[in-house]
């Protein structure tokens, strides 16, 4: 009996080792098994025609909702989206760009909305870069802030360090900056902070802001119901011109098909000049046309700006 107890105690001491062997080392035998092969695929599609869809986005300096077309356009960005490839391109046009007016004469492009209408701005842009926009979306300060609030703020990757014109406490750093809606608006409006060609630098900032908004939108869109919430905010915050609420909803959905890594932008360059009492930019039309030709069919710039 004692020998039996000793053997039992010995076995108990070995129990952890035995358990480890049983668990960790399979026996050398033939085991029927089922190998599972799971095929995982993803697919996405959007209600846009093949090719690039062009949208002219205008930011008015009249902040009041419903009065945006009474103001000057401080932001003018022509956006192209190709959901098949995920590419998107932006051509920025500085607000002081000196252009031929639809009814004759010349003036800064930012006056065209106030003296004509959204379509006239689209026509001037088409004359400059050679691309007709399918939609013209106009917003002012109130609508912009509401939309950014709906997004929950925005993170903008700034190429420049500066202090905003309207808020001396807002210091923008090179790299990512997280803004609330008012800070995003201050960032977008600032140009006095840039001693040289502030209007052109500001157009670059608009493109950085748009990219930040895209990324934030895609991040938030993972929440069930967010796209409809954003759709309502866009319907209320935008003067959509010829676009219907369904068009806005389609475009919002299509933004999910844009790859932020395939987004690029250029700003139409020009030279400073004073005409009468106005500081203007004489656009480099050849470069503007080249930009248009490069991105027209694939929303991708072939060369650096």
């Amino acid at each position: 009996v004692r020998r039996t107890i000793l053997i039992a105690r010995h076995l108990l001491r070995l129990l952890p080792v035995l358990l480890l062997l049983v668990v960790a080392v399979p026996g050398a035998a033939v085991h029927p098994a089922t190998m599972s092969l799971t095929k995982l695929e993803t697919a996405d599609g959007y209600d846009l025609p093949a090719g690039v869809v062009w949208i002219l986005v205008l930011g008015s300096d009249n902040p009041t909702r419903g009065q945006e077309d009474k103001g000057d356009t401080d932001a003018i960005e022509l956006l192209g989206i190709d959901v098949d490839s995920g590419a998107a391109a932006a051509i920025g046009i500085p607000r002081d760009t000196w252009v031929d007016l639809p009814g004759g004469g010349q003036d800064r492009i930012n006056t065209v909305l106030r003296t004509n209408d959204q379509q006239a701005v689209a026509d001037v842009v088409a004359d400059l870069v050679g691309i007709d926009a399918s939609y013209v979306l106009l917003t002012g300060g109130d609508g912009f802030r509401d939309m950014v609030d709906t997004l929950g703020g925005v993170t903008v990757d700034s190429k420049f360090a500066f202090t905003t014109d309207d808020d001396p406490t807002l210091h923008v750093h090179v790299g990512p900056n997280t803004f609330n809606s008012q800070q995003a608006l201050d960032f977008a409006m600032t140009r006095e902070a840039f001693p040289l060609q502030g209007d052109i630098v500001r157009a670059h900032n608009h493109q950085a802001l748009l990219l930040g908004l895209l990324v934030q939108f895609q991040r938030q869109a993972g929440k069930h119901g967010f796209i409809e919430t954003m759709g309502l905010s866009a319907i209320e915050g935008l003067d959509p011109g010829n676009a219907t609420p369904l068009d806005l909803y389609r475009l919002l959905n299509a933004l999910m098909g844009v790859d932020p890594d395939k987004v690029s932008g250029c700003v139409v360059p020009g030279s400073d000049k004073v005409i009468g009492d106005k500081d203007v930019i004489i656009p480099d039309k050849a470069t503007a046309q080249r930009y248009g030709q490069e991105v027209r069919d694939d929303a991708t710039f072939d060369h650096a700006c």
Partner: protein
Amino acid sequence: MGRMARQRNARPRALGARGAVAGLVAGALALVLLVSCTSDGSNPPPPAESPQNAALKVSTISADQLDEKTRNRVESEVSDVIADYVVGGFLGDYPRTDFVRGLADFSSDLARPAGADLDVLTASRYAKATSVRATRLDVRLSFLLPDGQDVGASAYVDFAFEVTQSDGTKVPITLTGRFSLGVRDGEWQFITYQVQRTDDEGLPSETTSEATPESSS
């Protein structure tokens, strides 16, 4: 033949046929679409036939922001479109080849990429199967109805099907993700899809395990 019940958290009512597609589906497949209603989301009693397709269960996000009449109407309209897609794309008599019928309510611009993604959006790769049965059809809806105008909706789907192949093997498949629908000329139609698809193709086999530490690590 498939039979699919539809379950919504709403007052029960019979579904009307939805145009030519619904008529075709009802006639050709003798498919019966039912709406059953429960307030607690529980499943209705199983019908006599077996195997039975799962009920299409529909709920609405932030439903309290819509009045009941509007919610019932838009839920019903969108559910009809989704039901037609499920029937045309997955269910019906097998073997079959007419899977493109599932895209009947896709907008013309969306039909272009959808045609290229037919293998993901439908059961077209199982054309020679014996049957396809829906085992889970859950949908959460989110509506965009500014000022009472029907504009659009997202449909977050969680679908599961079981394919029975001609050799008797069964393949579970799932389709999850988001569709969006918009209203054109008074009709809801699909305008976006962002979906994930899994096909779990079990391969029965015999394997030999070697009793070596390396193989067990």
